């Protein structure tokens, strides 16, 4: 069985400050982990993925995430927030080799000028 917990339902930052969106997971297998982003009234878009290669994963738009097995975490970070980063972010886990995903409940990122 697998599960994912996004520790914050909302995160507010100022433009130009760092972003940290937290995600913890549990999985019976060596997992694959993903972050997706959803802008208002849009579908979800893949930001980045971890599939047992490098533990630090770089994605689109300057985001990155680090897989920490000992902490069962996959937190999403960005050094400097931009107004266009305001969106909802979903952490996702799947056992390697399977196609059925488990989504977290989402974290809404608010960016103020």
């Amino acid at each position, binding site marked *: 069985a697998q599960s994912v917990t996004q520790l914050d339902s909302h995160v507010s930052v100022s433009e130009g400050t760092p972003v940290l969106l937290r995600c913890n997971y549990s999985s019976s297998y060596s997992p*694959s982990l993903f972050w997706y982003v959803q802008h208002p009234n849009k*579908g979800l878009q893949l930001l980045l993925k971890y599939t047992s290669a490098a533990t630090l994963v770089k994605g689109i738009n300057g985001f990155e995430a680090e897989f920490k097995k000992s902490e069962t975490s996959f937190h999403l970070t960005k050094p400097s927030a931009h107004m266009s980063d305001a969106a909802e972010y*979903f952490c996702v886990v799947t056992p390697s080799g*399977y*196609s059925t*995903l488990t*989504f977290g409940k989402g974290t809404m990122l608010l960016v103020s000028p």
Partner: protein
Amino acid sequence: DVKVTQSSRYLVKRTGEKVFLECVQDMDHENMFWYRQDPGLGLRLIYFSYDVKMKEKGDIPEGYSVSREKKERFSLILESASTNQTSMYLCASSFPREAGELFFGEGSRLTVL
């Protein structure tokens, strides 16, 4: 540019009506999925399909059925709509070897009165 198209962005139906939600992808993906998205609950898998004429139940299939007669098209059917099926419905597709890398449509927001 790859695309998953959901035919209706907004629908309003009455209780007891039969509802069809259509999804078409142009990427020759074998896998297709229907999710339901509700605030605070994240995405929940309704049904998925690995191939034409194949379907598998997801986590919340009750009250829904699906049809996949052609590879590029995956339809979600609500046989008798109820108010608790008011939601955002998201279609997605992927290759089997790229587990977790889903391409999403922009969603169909269904209101059942």
